[in-house]
């Protein structure tokens, strides 16, 4: 698994695109490449887990999540601009955080997760 990390950043960029729409307070995750099934795109809880586990978003943010298989797009819609900005900032740095977490995990360090509670396993 170590080997995948070396390529993961590029793969992430090739596989995922984030779009911001501040006017509509909407963040979009576009999953690129071969068309993914609904199961692969995931469920709402998994998107929230990703933000918490890898983004460090340790609070419940009010947002609506729409997962569309046809467009391969996941929209996060907010009513509150502060919430929009918080999640936008998380998404903007999430790949770097994932890399950092993975590198640490390879050495056995999972301290990052200690305060984030249980995940949807």
């Amino acid at each position, binding site marked *: *698994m*170590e*080997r*995948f990390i070396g390529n*993961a950043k590029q*793969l*992430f960029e090739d*596989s*995922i695109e984030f779009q911001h729409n501040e006017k509509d307070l909407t963040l979009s995750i576009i*999953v690129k490449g071969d068309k*993914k099934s*609904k*199961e*692969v*795109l*995931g469920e709402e809880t*998994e*998107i929230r*887990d*990703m933000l918490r*586990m*890898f983004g460090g978003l340790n609070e419940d943010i009010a947002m609506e999540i729409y997962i569309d298989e046809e467009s391969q797009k996941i929209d996060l819609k907010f009513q509150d601009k502060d919430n929009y900005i918080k999640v936008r900032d998380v998404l903007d740095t*999430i790949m770097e955080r*994932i890399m950092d*977490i*993975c590198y640490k*995990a*390879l050495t*056995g*360090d*999972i301290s990052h*997760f200690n305060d984030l509670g249980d995940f949807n*396993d």
Partner: protein
Amino acid sequence: MVAIPNSENNPFKALDKATDKTLYEDYAVSSIYIKVRDGVKIASTICLPKGLSPEKKIPTLLYQTRYWRAAKLRVPFRWMFKETLIHSPSPRLFTNYGYAIVYTDVRGCGASYGTRPYPFSKEEIKDGADIADWIISQPWSDGNIVSNGISYTGSTADLLAVNNHPAVKAVMPGHALWDAFTDVVAPGGCYDEAFMRLWSFLGNKLDNNDSAPFKQLLPIGWIIMKGVKPIDSDTDLSLLNEAIQEHATNEYVYELSNDKDFRDDLLPDGTSIDDISTYRYKQEIEKSNIPILGWVSWLDSAYCDATINRFINLNNPQIAIIGDWNHGGVYNGNPLVPDKEVSPTPEERIKKWIDFFDTCIYGKGIQGKTLYYYTMKEEKWKKTHNWPPEGFTRQRWYLDEGNMLNISKPENQTGEDDYKINFRATSGRMNRWWTLLGLPIDYSNREKADKKLLCYTSPPLKETIEITGHATITLFLSSTHEDGAVFAYLEVLDEDGNIYYITDGNLRLIHRKLSTETPPYKMLGPYHTFKKKDSSPLVPGEVVEATFAFRPTSALIPKGYRLKLAIAGADKDTFKQYPLDGGKPVITICRNAVNTSFIDLPIKIRNDI
């Protein structure tokens, strides 16, 4: 990366026949259930080269695992990677070369239905034939199947041959067992508490689709994986949940075996630990005449013995390879050259495996038996058709006064050394036993470890020697207790006093009787049956002989180095403690003209170096 030494004896050069025949660039994945003869549904993940034309027929690599055949990845990894990410090296290496791969969860495991009474059950072995039938009925199959794997999956590859299925053309057991009792459960009759407990714990969690233990044991795995991959049509997970419910009656080896002291102790259903051993299927495997490529490393648990035993006991055409890496070949495992990187890399190795499979499917196959072994410190591959290789003589080194190892027998009549067993003694958690969990191997701390042990050291060697094969040790000893164990570490000191581990051996002393019975398979070294009828407690104060083999090795020991023997009575991080109730045992090692204790090494003088 260190280049693979360029030698005609290098197996990775010898197998290097293929041209660059990359045919495909990616692969498609699907997961289904294959129903076997008794209705049990086996979860299977099929990888086919992308762009495979409908009329094209290709061979299949079958990989049967008790770990998850494919993983349900967490978001966002699921958007980036296929569910086969957990397989390293990537299945792409095979599909690019025009092989299909079928990964299965063996019955009772992963997303498969069924239950699991113990590993490698007869029903599990038969499933291999049913899956082979399914494979060759597929429109993309050319009717040829090969199988490989490492560790558990290495053994399922080995045992696929038992079925004598005509489509199976070659198997490749990597780091796989031969005799479950001595290779894994209780090497030298000493119960491997750490591995058996951890492996059973992990197996239980995997069979219940619980990834939580990975959080501590394999954090990167926990970060990436949520659980086992359900089959594609199981969108509401109802089938997966049904399958997991069937696993509730699975049995686990730690619970089955941790109170067993003898090879012939029976499990609850009347079978014994021997029944999960590959050697029990010698006749069926030989009847298949399927070519076998077995590979392992010197420092991987007792699997080096397993590979040698397979080599000397089976008449099938065979290649055996013994290198210097950890369990699975991911990390360097050469204690004499600890800083080098593993060679070959897993990717390089896989390409040679494809050459082997191609030769067996499309070429002339392999003839006879060849064993390639790596001599550590000399850093060279050797080749032999017989084991042990020719040209080695036995050389004894006697335990003597002043904690010396001498080439001449002691002359004194009463010399002996008392050793109070230190139950804190350990070879660490990166030893040859813990690497069964895929961990790196590290014996760099022998100086500290040896301070708790009884040690004997030779004068500097006058000539460079090569030790290749099974060294043995004979100790005349007494104890204050009826039970106990001896762990013997063969080490060397360089001219600066740095200590390097070479190999080790161990024996639970109730099993000390040297049997004159015919062993169940050809064995090298002293034969202990480990059966109840041959066991006997020690009589406190009474001197007995304990003779046993070190695990095999091949190492060059330069002139000027010194041999060192370190003796322990426990290895706390790995093996169960003997006596079971502890106490403060003292063993007395005799080293005199009457009761002569010694090590016996298979050596060759290497003045050519």
